[in-house]
């Protein structure tokens, strides 16, 4: 009895004309209270289950997922920043090494060039000395030869002339006279 009163007052509360029409011709099934309690009951059951499962099981998991994603992204960003700094430091180191090695190479090049130049100079000096020596000895020899050559020429001239005389006249001429003549001529040539 009490239930019926509630139902009727609720129905009037919503739309009294509609309710009367529904009762008369079945116009709006929404206002037919036959299944109202069934709908309320099943609404409470389904919505209750939905709320419980969502709030206790599913939503915390989604929230966790979002949190872990957030933290992981932050972590990754930090890590990448760190690695970038490291790589920059390495790059600097590498540059330094290259610079250093360039300087080293220049030094080595300069040193070896100097050494080579010194070596060449030394060798040239030595060679020049040797050449000078050789030239001097040769000059001395030439000088000697020059000194000795008139005597020899005289001798040869004497011999040749004695031979010529012998063949021309057929008699032996005194060697000493020939010598005297030759030396005389030679002396004349010298003065010339």
């Amino acid at each position, binding site marked *: 009895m009490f239930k019926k009163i509630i139902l009727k007052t609720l129905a009037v509360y919503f739309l009294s004309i509609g309710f009367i029409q529904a009762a008369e011709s079945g116009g709006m099934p929404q206002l037919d209270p036959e299944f109202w309690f*069934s709908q309320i009951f*099943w609404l409470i059951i389904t*919505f209750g289950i939905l709320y419980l499962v*969502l709030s206790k099981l*599913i939503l915390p998991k989604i929230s966790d997922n*979002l949190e*872990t994603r957030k933290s*992981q992204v932050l972590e990754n960003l930090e890590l990448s920043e760190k690695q970038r700094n490291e790589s920059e430091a390495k790059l600097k180191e590498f540059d330094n090494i290259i610079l250093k090695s360039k300087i080293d190479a220049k030094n080595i090049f300069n040193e070896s060039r100097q050494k080579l130049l010194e070596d060449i100079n030394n060798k040239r000096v030595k060679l020049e000395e040797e050449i000078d020596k050789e030239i001097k000895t040769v000059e001395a020899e030439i000088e000697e030869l020059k000194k000795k050559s008139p005597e020899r020429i005289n001798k040869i001239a004497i011999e040749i002339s004695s031979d010529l005389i012998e063949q021309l006249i057929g008699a032996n001429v005194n060697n000493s006279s020939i010598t005297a003549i030759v030396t005389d001529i030679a002396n004349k040539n010298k003065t010339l």
Partner: protein
Amino acid sequence: MAANPMTQFNVYRIGPEIKVGEIDISFTNASLFMVISTIAILFIFNFGAKKNSIIPTKLQLLGELSYSFISKMISDTAGSKAKPYFSFIFSLFMFVLFCNMLGMIPYTFTVTSHIIVTFVLAAFIFIGVTIIGFIKHGLGYLKLFVPSGVPMVLLPLIVVIEIISYLSRPISLSVRLFANMMAGHTMMKVFGSFVVSLGIVGGWLPLSFSVALTGLEILVAFLQAYVFAILTCIYLNDALNLHH
């Protein structure tokens, strides 16, 4: 029978009649679609929450986007104090949305097109919000009906208006959703029956209208769920942060 656009809202028993005392709580087609909605929501979000990859899968993305969408809606309208009620508003939004959307499939039943369902939801929200308000602020919650900066002469009138508007909240909340869903579905049924009655010659106009209406109704289905949830947030905001 099929020509009557209201028959789609008929509730009928599926299976045996179940009675507790005098109350009939039989399983009906409405109950069936409540169960289907619940299972669909739980299914989708369960699979959306199961995997935890940095690059989300499609279902995971759906779950996470819904989560952040609703949490942003709550924090925008009701502030950070409303965080404990996140699960409830999430369930509410999803339940209404899925009931609305499932109703868009032909030959299904729209749970939210029944005033009793929306009224129970709205009444629950209304009572809950009122209780929260009184717990948080005690009798100070009654200051809600006394806006600041109102001349003393007008105050009695304003208070009465405020009380009426506060008490009409569950009705406006429930009737908005119910009326939108019912009107939309009735319109679609009416235009659908026009297509049949006008035949192949004249039926093209109502058919194209029907197609356009389907798009509109999907929009309305989402929008009404959103409005339902955001109004709940606003009521909650009133109860949590008493501004007046």
